């Protein structure tokens, strides 16, 4: 019983770490793209100083 729980939580753990990592990667990429790279004029104007200060290609 105890051994079974141990095995389950180990596989669970490797899987969940990767799942959390992939979720963070997708959400983070969307946020960074919106702030730094998206071509929308409104987003560009709002994030202008931030884009310049992080060295994103701008203008």
């Amino acid at each position, binding site marked *: 019983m105890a051994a079974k729980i141990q095995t389950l939580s180990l596989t669970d753990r490797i899987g*969940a*770490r990767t799942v*959390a990592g992939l979720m*963070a990667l997708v959400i*983070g990429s969307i946020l960074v793209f919106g702030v730094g790279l998206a071509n929308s004029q409104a987003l560009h104007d709002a*994030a202008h100083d931030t884009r310049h200060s992080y*060295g*994103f290609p*701008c203008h």
Partner: protein
Amino acid sequence: MIVRLLLAALAAGLIAGMAMTPAQYVKIVPLILQAETYEGGGHDHGAAEAVSSTTAAGSETPEVTATAGQDHDANDHTHDEGDESMLGLGRLGDTVLANLVAGAGFALMLAAVALIAGIEFPAGRDGLMRGLLLGAGAWFCVQLAPSFGLPPAVPGFPHADLADRQGWWMVTVGASALGLWLVALRPEWVARALGLVLIAAPHVWGAPVPDDISSDVPAYLASAYAAASLATTLFFWLLLGGLLGHFLSRVPAEQRA
């Protein structure tokens, strides 16, 4: 818990993003405002004089920039008037918001790299040190490596096609990150050599360069800006990495599942 990992990353990102705004107002934003007076060839000497007082006080070292991240410097609010904002928050409000979103986004991506690469954060000082190293690595990939080809540019800087630069920037950040992972975390020397090749490749290929590099923006402003941008983002990434390492180390081991 997946949610706890994401929340830990988000908290680190929001704190670092919040600290970024005052850090930017130490030197970066005054230089941007000064450069904007030259943008498009129009020399507005009145505005240039108005910001010269802020740059006179802006010649601090990176260490000073880092510590000044805590104090909310109010003397730049006078430059906010007359800027249209899509959210009605004004220029400062927009920048605060954009910095929070950028901080959260970079934090989630940094946490993603740590989780997928299998970097563990032990409790206490070790977790903090690993976080700082991770932040320094991210600074190299996202700031230093792209800046070799596309130096941080003030408004009015000569520039090549935007899409070309953005493409080169994304490829360089990705290749540098993959290369750094191979060099730092893979034991095989073939992998390390491949990592070095990956880091160098975008620079051998070459960044898009404008045909005409003459500019109305004074060279002094541009070089001061490049140094200020690298220093300020180093502060951001070290703060973010340290916070991330600390927060992730506090997600209990059984909850990291």
